């Protein structure tokens, strides 16, 4: 160590001497070296400081000695710099250089003098360094922490690496949904259920809060509870349990008001969050990059992460590279498909006609069946089939139509990504269509007899019933004892059975099937894995629609059964883990793995539609049906929204009530709506204009890039040739061609890259103006541009200087030659 120190010092001194010598080149070089060295030293210094600060590190003694050594060196550097500053005046350099060197040296001294000074300066410096280090480390840790906080990120990434981004998009959607439901859950539990439990009238104080005596004996049985009867039914999880006391507890909490407002804000928040995320996705999808140029090359050369050290991660990375290659292959195949456009069009039209036929057929079938069921219901001795015909038919339609659609969709030969959208849209249309024909048929028949309240449970029934396996729910035959709990209990029961059906379907359809295929393959007469049953693929469209419909049900039911959202949160949580497991264990990737579109706005669009549709019945019941008189927080009122009026009248000063009265006037509301429509129109127009401008700019950029590319190509291949030509041609031709013209010529011939070089040469020899123009474009004329205005007529780029430097050299001394040096004419 000692030896090396001495050596370095010697070297440094030697350098110091050199610095003041006349050998300019040397000195400049040296300066650079010391500079870099200084920085290095600085780093080392930091390290040393840090280690000395944290003295518990194991090898601190070693570090200490190192930093001592470097400290000495640093000190020496600083001394040297100081010397340099003081002798700066005498240096035979140009002023600019002097200034820059001076500044550098001063900065250096300023920076390190504190570090080397005694006492306070040193400590302060060490402290500052330590804090900076700590801060950087903290920021990095915080970033890591943030990524770790994203729930299930690892799981989803793992699925993505094996099954592609399309399957992962479902899980991302599921996660997003979970987040939304969590917020809703917090809202409802925090503002409705918990206040009721804590401060509301206790169980048993009113008839609506007590289990009827007849049921008391069995109210705690599991089978009863499982049906959401007994004690569960008479709990704060349901609308009917609440009473119409205006304020509860010592806080004077206005529970009916809160109930109403939470019910509204659940929808408000959901709408807002869906629309906002749609808007954000739209932003992202327009903002994405222009990196379509080297897709495969980048995948090939840069996909592996060289810092992966964990075999499991490496496996995932392998899978994800493979998947991404597959995705790109699919995209590539799609874009290069040579197609018979007429045949394609014909097939697509045909497919759509077929599907519309299917939809109409299924609609008619349902209408027919519902009509028939009315006659069956009049008969006394109807069998099981007759009683359940509607459910059975709808379930069968729900089961067989989607595969049929998929088969028809193969005719269309869309890109799988677009195909998935069509498939989703069609199944969605099928279910909604079925639902509405069913409702219409039902309405038709029982128009006067049944109130709309009874229809609503049917709607829920069908939502899930038509989509999933038949889980014979007897919504229509459910005994209507009191109107209060029918609706809500029915919804909750449906949700739960829906969850179970989903999980059982996955278990049987995927897991058992996979086990069967896997293990029976040893003793079977054909190849099960490659042949008929094979492994299941992950059904993206089915799962997404299941999620969307389920959410619709939750939205619809959350007003009447506040506990429903809690159940849904649990469901989403379990289904996240369960489906991840099921996918990884028993599914195979799609035959054509395709890249999901970056924004899953299509899913969001479906969700928005469902949200709107589920908002309708709830809004209808709130606005136009009188609430039940014997249960619920609004009992005794004419309409539910009366609770707001009541609050305003009783709890606010008079003028607020007056203002509210004016605002609620239709004369004010209609203009307000008009204004909003106009605003929407205006904003829409503006955004369209922006979009157009954006597209224009993008195109321009693309063009510019291409132009630049061509320019570079031409330059690379023809530069030497052009130089030859330049010597051949008389300089006089140059003055005839303006740079503008040259520009034109150059852009005109973008495709004539290197292969056509020879030909170009011949051409160039024939027509001199073009050549001249070309040369003018190739010669970068730096000083001409600067020193005199560019006038086409007099543009002559120093013919006498032209020979060795086609572009001309900047005037003035050669770089690196000081003023002190005798200026000599360069030998050219």
């Amino acid at each position, binding site marked *: 160590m000692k030896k090396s120190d001495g050596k370095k010092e010697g070297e440094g001194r030697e350098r110091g001497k050199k610095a003041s010598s006349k050998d300019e080149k040397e000195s400049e070089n040296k300066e650079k070296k010391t500079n870099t060295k200084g920085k290095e030293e600085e*780093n080392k210094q930091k390290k040393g400081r840090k280690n000395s600060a944290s003295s518990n590190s194991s090898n601190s003694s070693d570090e200490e000695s*190192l930093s001592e050594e470097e400290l000495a060196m640093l000190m020496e550097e600083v001394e040297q710099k100081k010397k340099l500053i003081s002798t700066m005046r005498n240096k035979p350099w140009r002023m600019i250089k002097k200034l820059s060197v001076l500044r550098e040296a001063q900065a250096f001294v300023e920076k390190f003098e504190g570090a080397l000074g005694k006492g306070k300066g040193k400590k302060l410096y060490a402290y500052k360094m330590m804090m900076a280090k700590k801060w950087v480390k903290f920021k990095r840790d915080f970033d890591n922490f943030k990524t770790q906080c994203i729930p299930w990120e690892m799981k989803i990434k793992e699925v993505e690496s094996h099954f592609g981004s399309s399957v992962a998009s479902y899980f991302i959607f599921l996660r997003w949904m979970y987040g939304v439901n969590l917020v809703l859950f917090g809202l409802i539990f925090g503002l409705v259920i918990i206040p009721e439990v804590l401060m509301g009238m206790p169980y048993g104080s009113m008839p609506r809060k007590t289990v009827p005596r007849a049921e008391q004996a069995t109210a705690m049985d599991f089978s009863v509870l499982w049906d959401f009867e007994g004690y569960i039914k008479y709990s704060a999880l349901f609308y009917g349990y609440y009473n119409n006391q205006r304020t509860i507890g010592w806080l004077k909490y206005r529970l009916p008001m809160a109930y109403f407002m939470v019910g509204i804000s659940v929808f408000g928040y959901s709408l807002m969050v869906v629309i906002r995320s749609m808007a954000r996705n739209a932003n992202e999808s327009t903002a994405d990059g222009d990196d379509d140029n080297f897709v495969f090359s980048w995948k090939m050369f840069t996909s*592996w992460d060289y*810092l992966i050290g964990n075999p499991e991660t490496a496996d995932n990375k392998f899978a994800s590279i493979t998947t991404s290659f597959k995705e790109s292959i699919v995209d590539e195949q799609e874009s290069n498909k040579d197609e018979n456009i007429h045949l394609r069009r014909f097939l697509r039209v045909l497919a759509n006609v077929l599907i519309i036929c299917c939809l109409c057929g299924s609609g008619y079938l349902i209408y027919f069946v519902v009509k028939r069921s009315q006659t069956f219901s009049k008969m006394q001795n109807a069998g099981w089939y007759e009683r359940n015909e509607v459910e059975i038919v709808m379930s069968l339609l729900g089961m067989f139509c989607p595969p049929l659609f998929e088969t028809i969709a193969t005719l269309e030969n869309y890109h799988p990504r677009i195909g998935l959208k069509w498939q989703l849209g069609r199944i969605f249309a099928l279910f909604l269509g079925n639902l509405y024909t069913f409702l219409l048929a039902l309405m038709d028949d029982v128009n006067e007899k049944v109130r709309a309240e009874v229809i609503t449970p049917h709607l829920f029934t069908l939502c899930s019933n038509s989509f999933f396996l038949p889980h014979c729910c007897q919504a229509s035959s459910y005994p209507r004892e009191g109107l209060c709990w029918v609706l809500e209990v029915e919804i909750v029961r449906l949700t739960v059975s829906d969850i179970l059906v989903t999980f059982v379907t996955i278990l049987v359809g995927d897991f058992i099937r996979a086990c069967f295929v896997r293990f029976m393959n040893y003793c079977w007469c054909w190849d099960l894995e490659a042949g008929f049953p094979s492994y299941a693929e992950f059904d993206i469209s089915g799962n997404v629609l299941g999620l969307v419909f389920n959410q619709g049900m939750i939205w619809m039911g959350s007003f009447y059964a506040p506990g429903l959202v809690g159940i849904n949160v649990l469901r989403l949580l379990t289904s996240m883990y369960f489906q991840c497991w099921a996918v990884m264990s028993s599914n195979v990737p799609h035959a054509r793995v395709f890249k999901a579109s970056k924004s899953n706005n299509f899913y969001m669009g479906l969700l928005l539609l469902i949200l709107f549709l589920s908002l309708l019945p709830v809004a209808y019941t709130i606005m136009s049906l009188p609430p039940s008189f014997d249960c619920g927080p609004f009992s005794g009122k004419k309409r539910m929204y009366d609770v707001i009026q009541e609050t305003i009248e009783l709890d606010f000063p008079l003028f607020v009530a007056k203002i509210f009265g004016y605002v609620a006037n239709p004369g004010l509301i209609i203009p307000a709506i008009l204004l909003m429509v106009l605003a929407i129109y205006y904003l829409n127009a503006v955004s369209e204009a922006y979009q157009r401008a954006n597209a224009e700019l993008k195109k321009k950029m693309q063009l510019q890039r291409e132009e630049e590319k061509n320019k570079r190509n031409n330059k690379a291949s023809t530069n030497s040739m052009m130089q030859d030509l330049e010597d051949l041609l008389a300089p006089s031709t140059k003055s005839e061609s303006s740079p503008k013209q040259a520009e034109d010529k150059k852009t005109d011939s973008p495709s004539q890259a290197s292969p056509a070089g020879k030909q170009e040469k011949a051409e160039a020899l024939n027509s001199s103006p073009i050549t001249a123009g070309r040369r003018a474009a190739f010669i970068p004329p730096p000083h001409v541009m600067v020193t005199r205005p560019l006038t086409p007529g007099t543009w002559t780029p120093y013919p006498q200087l032209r020979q060795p430097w086609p572009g001309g050299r900047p005037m003035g001394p050669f770089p690196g030659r000081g003023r002190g040096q005798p200026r000599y004419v360069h030998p050219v």
Partner: protein
Amino acid sequence: MGSRASTLLRDEEIEEIKKETGFSHSQITRLYSRFTSLDKGENGTLSDACRCLTDELFVVEHARTAILQPTREDFQRIPELAINPLGDRIINAFFPEGEDQVNFRGFMRTLAHFRPIEDNEKSKDQNGPEPLNSRSNKLHFAFRLYDLDKDDKISRDELLQVLRMMVGVNISDEQLGSIADRTIQEADQDGDCAISFAEFVKVLEKVDVEQKMSIRFLH
């Protein structure tokens, strides 16, 4: 410890390495101890012995060049390289043509490609020889990983080999072929159906190679 490792290295050697690669003194000693711990192959016993005898400089002077030369197998024990599809290529990059062992100088020279470019180095003009960690040298290092036959061109066959390493048997040969073709088609500018270094640089123009091909060495 570092001091021990540094006694194994002669100071002038450190100086030379420093000049050549731009690593700092402490980095070199640290990397040297890493280098010695790599050598666990059949030479292991010898190098252990050498470590015991560090006080006797004479032995060390002789042992240093002869013993501390890890072989390919030693490198393959590094987990990051063992699972890397291109691991063999990287290991090869450490070994000079036709040799099975690498000495510390060569080791450092290869590692220098991965030294991050520091701010003050960017402003430096191109007077001296280009530092090993410059952008073009980094790219050239990467290029050599793909260019097996060292003809300064990545041919279709070479691409196919790399592809097979990266995706294994999951994609059919035909598709791999089309990927390779497509890659060449994307990158190829002069129409020779191979990717030259210039074209390679062009492809990776927008990739932040300076940052991606850098390892943070401990100071």
